[in-house]
């Protein structure tokens, strides 16, 4: 079944490449995906939404005389696709010549994701009732806690994605991958003084999903610990980032070291390769080849092999993360981070240290544990950060009360240069991730 679909879509890609070449394209790249989605929301013990579907999509890139045009369609009708290709070749002629345009020259040898453990055959076979029970059970356990006063519901989502990529330089690869996630969102407290939070587990393999008890328990803990928050005076204090917050900071770091942002000079880290942007505790890696991890893939959307790239080596910026185009602009090889017309992280993480989060908290005389941020407030051009924040106040090494209605502000480089401690709790819960860290000082604005 799997083989038949791969073969069918692979042949479609090859036919389109041949057609585009006939229409005058110098180079062509075709991506076809086939996605099966199952998404379930339950709330207050009942099913709320159930969505199930399969869909296909196709994207293509043509290059003619070093000029590029893109096209995409969810309509795989032969005539539609032919028209899109003709249009793309005609449009390419209206664009300008660009020396750096064009397909990569070297491709991945791993054309089927061998050894990466991306696909769980069990997901296809799961009975809907089993998934429904799991979501209901998660919410039921959470609601048993009397402090929880309302529910945003629990969700169970699974995806099965087949990706087929072929180009006119002879690359042809395809791989299947799966994702599943279980989550629950909760509220505690009365209408006018509510606290809310959620928790989740996302995995490629169904049997690795955290059980309902642990997702529910964590969601409850996270929600109730924010009840009855205090406001604090504006001050500069040490800030402890929980793993999800380190992940958020790394997401911003990615935006600032992405080869595209760098060649466009849209980031303060343009021109900083080889220089110090963090202290010795800041080592950041992008690795697309970690078996079973959420951000792994054999090759990127251009067919370039994914790899392990040390982005920050004990504070020194060593690499930008590039697709072929940004790589050519920066005279830097592609790092296997192409994603459509842009770049995206694979498994992008801060290397953990050896302190437990409890030890980090215990070592803090006075400080703020950042547990969640909301809003925007990230400026890649300057590295400035300013966000609404929720957290916990620490006195003499212990959490004393929750804090709300504050903002944290600082600068990414200053934060990386002032990491005082790195935790040992990296869990790859998301593709971009990190352990608990403690930063010497940030402005927490309150009253």
């Amino acid at each position: 079944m799997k083989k038949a679909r791969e073969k069918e879509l692979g042949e479609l890609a090859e036919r389109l490449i041949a057609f585009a070449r006939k229409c005058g394209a110098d180079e062509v790249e075709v991506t076809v995906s086939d996605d099966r989605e199952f998404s379930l929301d339950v709330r207050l013990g009942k099913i709320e939404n159930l969505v199930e579907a399969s869909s296909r999509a196709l994207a293509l890139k043509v290059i003619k005389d070093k000029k590029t045009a893109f096209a995409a369609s969810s309509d795989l009708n032969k005539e539609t696709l032919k028209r899109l290709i003709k249009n793309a070749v005609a449009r390419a002629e209206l664009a300008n010549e660009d020396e750096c345009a064009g397909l990569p020259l070297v491709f991945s040898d791993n054309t089927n994701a061998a050894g990466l453990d991306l696909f769980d055959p069990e997901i296809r076979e799961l009975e809907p009732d089993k998934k429904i029970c799991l979501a209901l059970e998660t919410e039921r356990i959470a609601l048993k806690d009397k402090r929880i006063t309302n529910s945003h519901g629990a969700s169970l989502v699974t995806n099965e994605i087949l990706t087929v990529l072929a180009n006119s330089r002879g690359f042809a690869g395809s791989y299947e991958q799966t994702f599943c996630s279980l989550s629950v969102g909760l509220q505690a407290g009365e209408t006018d003084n509510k606290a809310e939070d959620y928790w989740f587990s996302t995995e490629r393999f169904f049997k690795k999903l955290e059980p309902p008890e642990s997702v529910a328990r964590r969601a409850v803990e996270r929600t109730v610990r924010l009840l009855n928050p205090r406001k604090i005076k504006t001050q500069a204090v040490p800030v402890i980032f929980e793993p999800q917050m380190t992940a958020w900071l790394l997401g911003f770091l990615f935006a600032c070291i992405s080869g595209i942002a760098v060649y466009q000079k849209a980031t303060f880290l343009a021109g900083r390769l080889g220089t110090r942007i963090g202290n010795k505790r800041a080592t950041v890696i992008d690795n697309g080849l970690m078996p079973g991890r959420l951000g792994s893939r054999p090759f990127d959307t251009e067919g370039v092999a994914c790899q392990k790239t040390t982005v920050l080596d004990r504070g020194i910026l060593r690499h930008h993360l590039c697709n072929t185009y940004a790589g050519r602009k920066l005279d830097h090889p592609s790092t296997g981070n192409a994603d459509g017309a842009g770049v995206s992280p694979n498994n992008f993480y801060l290397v953990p240290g050896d302190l437990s989060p409890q030890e980090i908290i215990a070592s803090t005389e006075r400080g703020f544990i950042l547990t969640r941020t909301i809003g925007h407030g990230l400026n890649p051009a300057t590295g400035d950060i300013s966000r609404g924040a929720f957290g916990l106040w620490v006195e003499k090494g212990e959490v004393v009360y929750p804090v709300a209605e504050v903002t944290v502000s600082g600068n990414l480089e200053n934060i990386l240069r002032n990491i005082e401690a790195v935790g040992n709790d990296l869990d790859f819960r998301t593709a971009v991730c990190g352990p608990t860290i403690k930063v010497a000082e940030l402005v927490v604005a309150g009253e």
Partner: protein
Amino acid sequence: MIAFDDHFKLATTDLKKILEAALSRGGDFAEIYGEYRHFSFINMEEDIIKETAEAISLGLGVRVVSGDKTGYGYTNDLSLDKIRRAVLTAAAIASGTGAKSLPRFQRVRVKGDPYPVKEPFHKTNLSQKIDLVKKAYLACQKSSLKIKKVKVGLQDHIRQVFIVNSAGIMARDIRPQVRLICAAIAEKGKRREIGFSGGGGRVGLEYFRDVLTAERIGKEAAQDALTLLEAVEAPAGEMPVVLAPGHSGVLVHEAVGHLLEADFNRKKTSIFWNKLGKKVGSELISITDDPTIPSFRGSYAVDDEGTVPRKTLLIEKGRVVSFLQDRLSARLMGMPLTGHGRRQDYTCIPIPRMSNTYIEKGQDDPGDIIRSVSKGIYAEKFEGGQVEDSGKFTFSISSGHLIEAGRMTAPIKQATLIGTNIDILRKIVMVGSDLSFGLQTGTCSKEGQEVPVTDGCPTIKISRMTVGGKS
């Protein structure tokens, strides 16, 4: 036959059969949503037209509602076999048997035209669009030698939707959408700042001649970046905040609008669920959502459930008077439809959403509002914001000014405003007479679904608010 015969070869009898099959397990309501979207994009940077793109999205979704449960299936393969599979998925949400007889379909008629377009973008040829992009690019680049990098993107699409449901509604809408965005990077010494501007809406090519030219968009982006080069750190702490007219509408969108969407109130997660008819804020403030404003980015002739939308007063002189409804919440809450059931595309279930949301104008002179502040900030441009159901929200200022002794002084950069919505609504102490709307480029995200919106407000003074700056 209905709607776009080229794309959906479905006769009225087919539609009937689909709906009957959808209700075969005993659902209360069934609906077919079909969508064809044709999108085009041009990107200019480094002085060249770097790439162009064209995208087609075609698909059909079937929804079945049984009590408060929703089943949904969709497909982009429009063979009857695949449609049938989507129908069976959706139908399975109900667990019984039932053969409902369907009423005769009634075509929904819309008064007025929310898209009075003269020269439709989807019929404009590519070289004309490229001209527009180049005009914005050059105007931006030529503004100053300090402008080191310019990027201009032009996106336009035409989205055709049809909705047929078991209540007998048959509706269609053909919605144009255009957005021209310019980003400029300015440098001075080691300092680097990004400025933005943009325009568009449900408009035609004539908009960029008669309403807002590409050159002006380019110049505004440059000016935005140049101003930031001179900006000082924003202060931190509690202080009076004056919101500039237009862009500040994001505050009403985030802090108030979302929590007046009916689903959050039906589920009692919103802080407003028990406050209908109650006073929650200053008498100076009234808030409206209006999907019928011609040419606006958030407007539509019918919503994504086939309901003709109406201008909806949400807060009247500080009192909550209604919620934004979709069919499901309106039925479960026993309230009238307002026409705010929207969806990102055919893969999504419709949910209550805002369209064009604004604070009604007040009586105060904008100059008097600024003069009334001895020390505070004037918030001008925003990156966006976010709200929690509990009413806690933030929004991010990307530029503004300090106010000192009743006068605007130094420009400030990035800062975050944070608060709880009811607290802020009570602290609105002056409302200007100068209502305007922000850029016609906004997108709102909820439950992973993005829809185009606009928001607006007059100059407003909030007596105290927490500002998160660095100094």
